[in-house]
């Protein structure tokens, strides 16, 4: 064991060894001279000298020296002590490693998502996302270009405001077409984010609204599709069959401005000059931009929001017809921005981190009980050290150091584990149609987090018992004849207190995980209002592949005809939206003759669906009719509304024949569909309007109701589409059941983690109470023997031991219940179909924990009861 071997330290160590050897030699020589045999003399001399390592150790402490040497000495001593009891060391290290890993894993997920909202961007703390109107979960892009431009130019609180809109596109021109996620961005996009190109340049202000077909490539796209061509700048590539010029390449790791979403390449807002309408209007389809601003130094979010509200107020006053609904501006820091993934993360991950912290606390309490028991059995050694001149602070320092050494090793193990578990976050997200790049990250923040939590844990599980043990007066401990009392009543109280803490901490974990598991079951069992089984969907990248409008129309009809004719297909339809995939389209809708209240949000969800859509999903049309093939571009625009929309716009009236203004056009209601789930099972119902696919459809998703397993039909559907045109990109071919899993992925994360944490908590609490009751019973063996010898029956003994354990359990459960009732309030928002204080869950958890504790107390009680009193009395 050579830790921090100082040169002088080694020499002094050797000299001390020699000095002691000399002492022994002289003692032996004296004894031999008195007539003892060599062997007897040696033994006597060694015995007389005493505990050589202990003497050496105490002597070394007198050398003083640098703090480095002192720490080195203490560490060596701690390691020696830990090596003496490998069982304790391994158990404690493993438990701490798991608990620290639980924390660091959740933290690495927070670090990779909420704390790194925009990879590659400078000072993301100064960035805020802008939302206009009603705040809701997963909002649609809130700004038109003209509104955005006015906000950008008239505010006084931002150094810059950027805007973007992203979607899938097909990269053509190469050997194979490839789907990529493209963003239309304002010219200052990279400037505001604080990103510099690795090659070429980014966009110029004068390019923003003019049709300049320039493109900036993302690093990974440049590497994979263009072979990291160093001369790519200035070359022409093809996007959706249009030639565009590469002007620059973004640095590695830059993936755009929406948290959790990967953008592959960037163009200006209207690079081909085909979107003039969108660039010159303020409402309807022209509301398409997500906006992020960078605050000026020293400006608070509140001040900035006020400033923007003033600007927005003027815009609304100037263009009232374009801004009928709610127009208030709200700002969110990027870590909880509702645009992208962080809204979901902020609702889930901090709570899981709190659970993990409880697990760590619980584990520390458990290790502290083990440590305390160990210190009690080591109290003679501690007393000797104390009487040899070690002061209390030194003793405490040394014992705390043992805890710290343990936790440092545990932290190192956790570090290795976390480097793997941080990457497991992506597992929770099923295959879906978004370019998600959610994962944990393992950077210096996580390492610091591990270091801090392991040190804290080490202090907790070392300091408390150490302080207690060091308090024991040395003389009394040395005089004490036997270990019949477990280190005095103070230690007993501390032990019981620690076990109470473990039970009190594990109960809320169990309650929360029970609530989460039942939520998950309720979500899975809930009826979303549409058929999920026997449905296959496949996206066709028609709109992104560069076909003309007429070509698209022809191809869509062909797809519908061919897929319908496939054997095994019951019904085929087209749609441009799949429910419960965390995505939706929304626009303002104005019922004819309806005067909205000030600040009333008029946004509705909408979906464009072809004939037989409702039939294939088993959504009943309650009034009116479904769409027919005749509802095409030549026919009058028609709508089907759901019950929520009907009730909201025309309460108490017949909605059929009523008209809604959307995107400046009038749509007539021809049917009412039953409500179904749009985003999440536990959403509050939002109005949705269905429009005819052949009138206003944009994206093309083929939706097929199959006779058998939908997966079996996937190749046939793909083939049928490719027979029309082999260049048609087909992607995201999967059963509906698989797509809708996205809606419950956060419930899965919550229940999976909470369940794991609760299991750890249960095991720790039960082993904790078992350990303490067993230990205390063993300490009382002598007393129990006396009681039995004096006539106590076995049942009396059983009761004696059981009662002390059950007292602890009872207090722990009572405290835990109070704690649980507070904690479940935090998770109430995440529950579905179950109250936060659900009595069944609480009762079953209390019963489970109580029963497990009873077993844990019964085992040692049973053992004590069966002891032979005679042998028990002899045992001290």
């Amino acid at each position, binding site marked *: 064991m050579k830790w921090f071997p100082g040169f002088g330290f080694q020499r002094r160590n050797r000299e001390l060894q020699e000095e002691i050897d000399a002492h022994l030699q*002289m003692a032996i020589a004296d004894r031999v001279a008195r007539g003892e045999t060599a062997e007897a003399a040696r033994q006597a001399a060694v015995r007389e000298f*005493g505990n050589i390592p202990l003497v050496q150790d105490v002597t070394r*402490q007198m*050398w*003083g020296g640098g703090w480095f040497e002192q720490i080195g000495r203490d560490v060596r001593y701690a390691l020696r002590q830990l090596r003496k009891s490998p069982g304790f060391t391994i158990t404690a290290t493993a438990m701490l490693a798991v608990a620290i890993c639980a924390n660091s894993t959740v933290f690495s997920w927070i670090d990779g998502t909420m704390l790194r909202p925009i990879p590659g961007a400078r000072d993301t703390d100064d960035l805020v996302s802008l939302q206009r109107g009603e705040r809701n979960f997963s909002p649609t892009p809130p700004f038109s270009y003209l509104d955005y431009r006015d906000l950008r130019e008239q505010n006084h609180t931002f150094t810059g405001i950027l805007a973007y809109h992203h979607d899938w596109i097909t990269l053509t021109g190469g050997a194979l077409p490839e789907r990529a996620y493209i963003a239309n961005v304002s010219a200052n996009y990279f400037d505001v984010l604080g990103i510099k190109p690795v090659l070429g340049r980014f966009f110029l202000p004068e390019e923003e609204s003019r049709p300049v077909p320039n493109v900036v490539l993302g690093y990974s796209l440049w590497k994979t599709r263009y072979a990291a061509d160093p001369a790519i700048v200035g070359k022409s590539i093809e996007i959706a069959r249009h030639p565009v010029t590469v002007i620059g390449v973004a640095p590695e790791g830059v993936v755009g401005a929406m948290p959790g979403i990967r953008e592959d390449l960037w163009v200006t807002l209207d690079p081909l000059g085909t979107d003039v309408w969108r660039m010159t209007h303020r409402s309807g389809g022209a509301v398409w931009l997500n906006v992020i601003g960078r605050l000026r130094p020293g400006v608070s979010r509140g001040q900035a929001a006020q400033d923007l509200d003033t600007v927005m107020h003027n815009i609304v006053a100037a263009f009232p017809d374009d801004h009928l609904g709610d127009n208030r501006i709200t700002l969110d820091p990027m870590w909880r921005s509702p645009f992208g993934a962080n809204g979901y993360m902020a609702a889930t991950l901090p709570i899981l981190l709190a659970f993990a912290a409880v697990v760590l606390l619980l584990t520390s309490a458990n290790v502290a009980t083990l440590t305390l028991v160990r210190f009690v059995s080591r109290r003679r050694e501690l007393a000797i050290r104390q009487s040899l001149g070690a002061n209390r602070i030194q003793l405490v320092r040394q014992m705390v150091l043992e805890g710290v050494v343990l936790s440092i090793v545990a932290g190192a193990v956790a570090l290795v584990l976390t480097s793997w578990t941080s990457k497991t976050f992506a597992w929770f997200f099923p295959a879906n149609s978004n370019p998600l790049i959610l994962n944990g990250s393992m950077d210096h923040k996580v390492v610091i987090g591990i270091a801090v939590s392991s040190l804290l844990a080490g202090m907790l599980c070392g300091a408390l018992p150490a302080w207690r043990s060091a308090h024991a007066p040395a003389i009394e401990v040395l*005089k004490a004849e036997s270990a019949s009392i477990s280190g005095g009543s103070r230690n007993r109280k501390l032990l019981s207190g620690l076990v109470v803490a473990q039970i009190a901490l594990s109960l809320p974990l169990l309650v929360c995980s029970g609530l989460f598991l039942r939520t998950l079951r309720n979500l899975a069992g809930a009826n979303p209002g549409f058929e999920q089984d026997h449905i296959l969907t496949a996206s066709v990248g028609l709109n992104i592949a560069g076909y003309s409008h007429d070509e698209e129309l022809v191809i869509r009809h062909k797809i519908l005809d061919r897929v319908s004719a496939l054997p095994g297909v019951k019904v085929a339809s087209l749609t441009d939206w799949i429910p419960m995939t965390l995505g939706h389209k929304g626009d303002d809708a104005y019922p004819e003759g309806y005067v909205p209240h000030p600040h009333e949000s008029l946004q509705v969800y909408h979906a464009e669906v072809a004939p037989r859509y409702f039939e294939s999903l088993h959504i009943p049309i309650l009034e009116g009719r479904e769409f027919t093939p005749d509802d095409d571009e030549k026919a009058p625009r028609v709508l089907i509304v759901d019950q929520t929309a009907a009730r909201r716009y025309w309460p108490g009236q017949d909605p059929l024949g009523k008209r809604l203004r959307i995107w400046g056009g009038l749509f007539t209601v021809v049917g009412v569909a039953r409500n179904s789930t749009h985003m999440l099972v536990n959403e509050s119902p939002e109005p949705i309007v269905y429009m005819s696919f052949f009138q206003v459809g944009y994206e093309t998703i083929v939706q097929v109701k199959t006779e058998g397993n939908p997966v079996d039909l996937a190749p046939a559907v793909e083939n049928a589409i490719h027979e029309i045109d082999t260049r048609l990109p087909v992607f995201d071919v999967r059963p509906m059941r698989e797509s809708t899993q996205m809606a419950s992925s956060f419930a899965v994360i919550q229940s999976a983690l909470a369940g794991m944490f609760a299991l750890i908590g249960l095991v720790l609490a039960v082993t904790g109470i078992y350990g303490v009751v067993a230990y205390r019973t063993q300490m009382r063996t002598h007393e129990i023997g006396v009681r039995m010898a004096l006539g106590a029956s076995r049942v009396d003994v059983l009761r004696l031991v059981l009662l002390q354990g059950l007292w602890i359990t009872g207090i722990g459960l009572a405290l835990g219940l109070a704690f649980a009732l507070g904690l479940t309030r935090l998770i109430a928002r995440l529950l579905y179909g179950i109250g936060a204080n659900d009595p069944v869950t609480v009762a079953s958890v209390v019963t489970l924990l109580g029963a497990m504790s009873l077993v844990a107390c019964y085992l040692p009680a049973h053992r004590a009861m069966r002891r032979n009193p005679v042998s028990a009395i002899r045992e001290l």
Partner: protein
Amino acid sequence: MSEKDQYKNRIELLQGTLDMLILQTLQWGPQHGYGIVQALRLRSGDVLQVETGSLYPALHRLERQGWVQSEWKQSESKQKARYYRITAKGKKQLASDLDRWEQIVEAIGSVMYVKPEESAS
């Protein structure tokens, strides 16, 4: 058990007394650790039995404080040993230790040997 017996019978030395005894022993000439133990036992008529676990830490502490110096020498029996020698600073310390000791003895004595009539008045 051996450890227990060993420590049970030891004579608790008042804090600081051991330092004084060691320094006093070294007044008679340089001595090694074993020699100090023997000398103390001999001169106290087998009453004072200094623990090695107290002696060596004390010697090393005294050396750090500059009250003793040490060097390696051959003993009469050709055994190489570390000899400690008292320094000038150590002698001063011994004088002040002795002063304090005498005060304590006197103080304790005046408590223990109180004359009955004095306490009655």
